[in-house]
């Protein structure tokens, strides 16, 4: 099995005898790990270094003598103690291990040739290595119905199962979704779900990865390849900003599987299903392999790169010549590599000269805030005994593996979390206290907690007494203006000077894009736009640009003539849907740089075919500021290419030079020379767990002025948030996951639903000052009174039409339609 013992710094050394030789181990660590670290791998099936040991499979039996004679003990359950003597190779141990293997194989089908696990199966490997040649078990083996689906993604073959408790332990202990369980007893024991209640966990794919046999298989990989046909490379998942380390496994230039890698500071080997199975989008037939240009007839049709790039360059030049550089705007870039983000920053700000650049789509936080706050790493937030103020989106939905880390921290490491938000979240069952802050009240609720006037006395005391407060900060509600969150952050900085912050922004490389300068008013490394020209640059913009909403407003009214969508889809992602629509219609030229013709690209004049995850090499930066490498495993379709290459080519057409000599790495090195934040990258490329940027915070101020209107006749305040499975392009293009997105819905508290007569799924009309939608209503215990929750980019109902960008909150009226 690929799991390795965790990295360990020996702080409390003890000496033990391992097969006659003295070795040093950490007092109290598990014997199985100490032996492996010292060169004696002990076979095992049930033990997993990231889960509590259960000592069930008995494969790891060794002879342990603590002074009272040698006895067979499961090395996964025995803590190392001084003077212990261990024999992992004695005849008795060998006989016991042979016996266990024979028992495990007694009822295990010999269908290795048709089993997905064949070739990478610990049971198969160990049977070859240690087992007898033939079985003495002549009886009929146990029979069960062959693979049964236990969820939309996972199949279970109970005949192959060796009852090691890994999947069930994971579901309970790690994911907190104990929907699979041992059923029945003794030799009749099996893993199964409750009838009619599938294993619908966001983390179900991990059970497939840790299954030591072929009992659990995932639909995207079933019968796709044999392990010996797979090639793999290590990389980082970029579906969200947690930055889980993965291996990307491919065969014949097609990615077939992602597996979690145990990165100690980040994902502990776990992945969410969206990240694990999201590679499917890369293999989609809807990928574009050539640039597309809108023809005379109004259709997008394939053109050569020269034509496309010339077209783009002339549109840009014309705009710059006509209305000045600010008439060109770049929107998006939070899904690019660091290198591509820097390339586009340099192209936009240094070559074209526009500062109308924003990698976020009105759904994030100002760059000044994110880069200005003193940072906290995931490990620091989850450190044993920490106190955490959580002011973010539902991590289980948006940053799933951060949720796993926080859940573990709260559940096992005594981390006390105070959650403040408009609804309960997936994390709520594990936090010290969940405090409701209705939309608009986030800052005032936080203020009261910190100045001791809150009615939540215990939570307030917890936060006020914390010596080293950690704050997770993000947007729990896209219908609440970002300034309210900014205000809360400013308040915390003022009253708790030592507090450190983990930004909970969602898009894969949003942190990297901000650090690369893909936001208005900033240069790489959070340097303020003030005339300093970075080395290798021609110039910098003279005028500060606008944020996404300002850019879109300018596009709508014609001040922005060329709108470049850098892997972004404002028509789907920008919360104020009508503004996005007006902007796309208003801009003279819309250029989309994307692997797909997404909803916005449908309206573009030019679509430049970009590569995507696993097709380009480079680096990415996760939400805490950790830079890790992305490796290329397959080639992009057709002539699609990396975003930075497109920037280089376009720069060329504009008569300038982006300064790339050999590879994208030149861009990273150039950025690192200028940016103090990137100082750690000056010495070389990040490997493995990566390197941390300087996250101590920069001297940036983000003003936060707003006024929350009193509740009006529109009696409920809207919360617009995300679910893990939605109708975003990448999910829609992943066949296994596309069907998992729910339908549009408005969720109400029982108290608000009752007077409306809402029960089950009544159709209601939700009306704001700006629009109305008809949608099914349900009662949700996570929703407090006074709030209506709708999900962003989910279903056919467009909740975004209810909003107007810049309004502090959005009040809605809900009526039975």
């Amino acid at each position, binding site marked *: 099995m690929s799991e390795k013992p965790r990295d360990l710094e020996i702080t409390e050394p003890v000496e033990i005898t391992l097969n006659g030789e003295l070795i040093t181990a950490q007092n109290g660590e598990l014997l199985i790990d100490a032996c492996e670290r010292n060169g004696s791998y002990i076979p095992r099936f049930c033990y997993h270094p990231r889960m509590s040991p*259960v*000592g*069930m*499979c*008995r*494969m790891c*039996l060794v002879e342990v003598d603590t002074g009272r004679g040698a*006895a*067979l003990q*499961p090395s996964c*359950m025995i*803590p190392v103690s001084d003077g212990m003597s261990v024999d992992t190779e*004695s*005849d*008795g141990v060998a*006989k*016991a291990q*042979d*016996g*266990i293997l*024979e*028992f*495990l194989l*007694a*009822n295990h089908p010999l269908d290795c040739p048709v089993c997905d696990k064949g070739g990478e199966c610990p049971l198969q490997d160990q049977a070859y290595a240690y087992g007898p040649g033939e079985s*003495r*078990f002549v*009886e009929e083996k146990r029979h069960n119905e062959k693979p049964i689906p236990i969820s939309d993604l996972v199949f279970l073959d109970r005949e192959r199962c*060796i*009852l090691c408790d890994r999947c069930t332990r994971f579901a309970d202990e790690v994911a907190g979704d104990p929907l699979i369980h*041992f059923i*029945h*007893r*003794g*030799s*009749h*024991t099996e893993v199964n779900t409750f009838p009619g209640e599938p294993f619908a966990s966001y983390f179900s794919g991990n059970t497939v990865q840790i299954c030591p046999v072929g009992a659990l298989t995932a639909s995207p990989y079933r019968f796709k390849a044999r392990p010996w046909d797979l090639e793999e490379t290590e990389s980082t998942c970029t579906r969200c900003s947690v930055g889980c380390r993965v291996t990307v496994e491919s065969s014949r230039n097609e990615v077939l599987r992602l597996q979690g890698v145990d990165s100690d500071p980040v994902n502990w080997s776990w992945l969410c299903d969206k990240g694990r199975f999201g590679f499917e989008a890369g293999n989609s037939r809807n990928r574009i392999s050539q640039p597309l240009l809108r023809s005379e007839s109004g259709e997008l049709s394939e053109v050569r790169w020269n034509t496309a790039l010339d077209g783009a360059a002339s549109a840009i030049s014309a705009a710059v010549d006509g209305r000045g550089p600010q008439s060109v705007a770049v929107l998006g870039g939070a899904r690019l590599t660091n290198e591509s983000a820097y390339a586009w920053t340099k192209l936009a700000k240094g070559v074209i000269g526009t500062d109308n650049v924003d990698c976020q789509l009105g759904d994030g936080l100002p760059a000044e805030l994110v880069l200005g706050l003193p940072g906290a790493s995931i490990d620091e937030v989850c450190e044993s005994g920490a106190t955490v103020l959580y002011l973010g989106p539902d991590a289980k939905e948006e940053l799933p593996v951060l949720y796993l880390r926080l859940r573990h921290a709260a559940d096992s490491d005594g981390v006390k979390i105070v959650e403040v938000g408009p609804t309960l979240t997936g994390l709520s069952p594990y936090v010290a206290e969940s405090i409701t802050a209705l939309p608009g009240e986030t800052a005032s609720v936080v203020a009261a907690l910190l100045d001791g006037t809150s009615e939540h006395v215990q939570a307030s005391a917890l936060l006020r007494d914390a010596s080293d407060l950690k704050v997770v900060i993000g947007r729990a509600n896209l219908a609440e203006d970002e300034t309210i969150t900014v205000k809360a952050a400013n308040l915390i900085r003022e009253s708790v000077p030592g507090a450190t912050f983990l930004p909970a922004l969602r898009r894969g490389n949003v942190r990297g894009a901000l650090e690369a300068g893909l936001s208005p008013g900033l240069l790489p490394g959070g340097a303020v736009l003030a005339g300093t020209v970075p080395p290798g640059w021609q110039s910098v913009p003279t005028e500060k640009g606008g944020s996404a909403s300002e850019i879109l407003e300018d596009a709508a009214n014609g001040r922005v003539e060329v709108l470049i969508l850098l892997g972004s889809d404002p028509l789907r992602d920008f919360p104020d849907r009508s503004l996005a629509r007006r902007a796309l219609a208003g801009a003279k030229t819309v250029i989309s740089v994307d692997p797909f013709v997404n909803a916005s690209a449908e309206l573009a004049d030019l679509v430049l075919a970009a590569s995507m995850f696993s097709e380009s090499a480079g680096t990415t930066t996760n939400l805490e500021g950790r830079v890790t490498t992305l490796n290329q495993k397959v080639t992009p379709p057709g002539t699609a290419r990396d975003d930075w290459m497109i920037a280089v080519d376009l720069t060329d057409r504009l008569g300038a030079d982006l300064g790339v000599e050999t590879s994208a790495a030149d861009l990273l090195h150039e950025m690192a020379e200028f940016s103090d934040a990137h100082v750690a990258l000056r010495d070389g490329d990040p490997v493995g767990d990566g390197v941390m940027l300087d996250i101590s915070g920069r001297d940036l101020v983000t003003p936060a002025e707003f006024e929350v209107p009193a509740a009006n006749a529109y009696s409920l305040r809207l919360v617009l948030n995300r679910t893990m499975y939605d109708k975003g392009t990448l999910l829609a293009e992943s066949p296994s996951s596309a069907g998992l997105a729910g339908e549009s819905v408005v969720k109400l508290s029982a108290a608000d639903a009752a007077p409306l007569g809402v029960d089950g799924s009544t159709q209601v009309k939700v009306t704001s000052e700006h629009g109305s939608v008809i949608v099914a209503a349900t009662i949700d215990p996570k929703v407090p009174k006074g709030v209506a929750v709708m999900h962003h980019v989910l279903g056919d109902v467009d909740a975004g039409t209810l909003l107007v960008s810049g309004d502090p909150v959005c009040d809605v009226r809900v009526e039975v339609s």
Partner: protein
Amino acid sequence: MSDTAVDTDEADQDVPKVVSSRFDVADGHTLDGYTRSGSFEGYAALRRVLTMTPGAVSELVKDATLLGRGGAAFPAGVKWGFCPPGVWPRYVVVNGDESEPGTYKDRLLMERDPHQLIEGSLIAAYAIGAAQVFLYVRGEMPHAQERIAAALNEAYEANLIGKNILGTDFSVDVVLTWGAGAYIVGEETALIESLEGNRGMPRLKPPFFPAAKGLYMMPTIVNNVETLSNLPWLLNHGVAEYRSIGTEASPGTRLIALSGDVERPGVYEVPQGTTTFRELFESERYGGGIRGGHELKMFIPGGASAPWFFPEQVDLPLEGRVVGGEGSMLGSGAVVVMDDTTDAVRACLRLVRFFARESCGKCTPCREGTVWEEKILQRILDGQGRPSDLDLLLDVADNISPGPYPLAAYAEADLEAIPFPPRQTTICPLGPSSVAPITSAIRRFRHEFEDKINRKDSIPVTSAGMSNV
């Protein structure tokens, strides 16, 4: 509803009734009956205990060497002392999940003298500082459940349980709960799992010794029903009188369920160590001789998990250390007598089948091995055995409960040296217990197996139940 033979000879003063004095008292199960009848006054011990310090009570129990009656014979007072200091809460769990084949004593104690058990539980709770007692009765014993429920209701009403017991600041709850059919739950860590609402699968000891990490990972004392039922008498009569019964190492009495091929099967309270198996089988007071004038073939001295004894061992006393020294155990006081009409293979299969059915499934060797053993034995009994099956059976058994190793020593020692208590490749002794009947039967009656394999003694499959697992 029961007409169980119990030793009720009141006149016989040389065998004191420590725990069974109310077995034949019609209302002995009521509070009134408990305070009026029997070998001591009900709840007098509790009153006395409440004038003592908890530490003094523990010392007294330790001095008496009250050995656990659940099978392991570990001194209760010593076990109580294992609670780590300063860790609260502590719990007392009463193990009334009697289900070791051949064992029948705790059910009688629960049905016929529930107050004696309750009083004993209160004394234990007081001594260790537990504010909650969980009385876990076997699920299949509704009569015991209703008798205990009634007794608890009476005792709560009489302020013998609950808040400020008898006007002191001693407050404790005794909660009745029960199982639902799983032999393994009689193992103390499995019982704790069950009491936490889980599958009754044993925990590894160490680290999960209940006295340190038990119920909800808090210090927990799990005591057998009979063990706790000894406490009222002990507190009434004192250590000296208690120790005057039985032997130095094993004082007091034991309830022995004598079953199988004897004329007078029954549950008898016998002094520990002073009675021999022969006396138990043959005397008119107890067994009254082997049934129908047959000869003794073998007997199980301490429940299904115990290796068998044979006629040459009948003169051993019923004393834990002596029986242990001879390679078996007195276990839970279950003596099963098998006469010369017994088919050793069939008896062996029946016992093995029990363990196969009751394996919890946690450890691979037990889950897979016990069923395999059963299949081989069934095959032999059905006349389908192969000559290699006996070696296979012994080797499968050896992989659940390894013989002495290194293996060379195993060969030298032959099968006579099967160690007891068993070594195990499993967490708990259930799987290894299945090895006891196999090694016992094969080392003594190998020819019976071989005859069946060679079809000299091909008997028809007599019981449909046998093949119905």
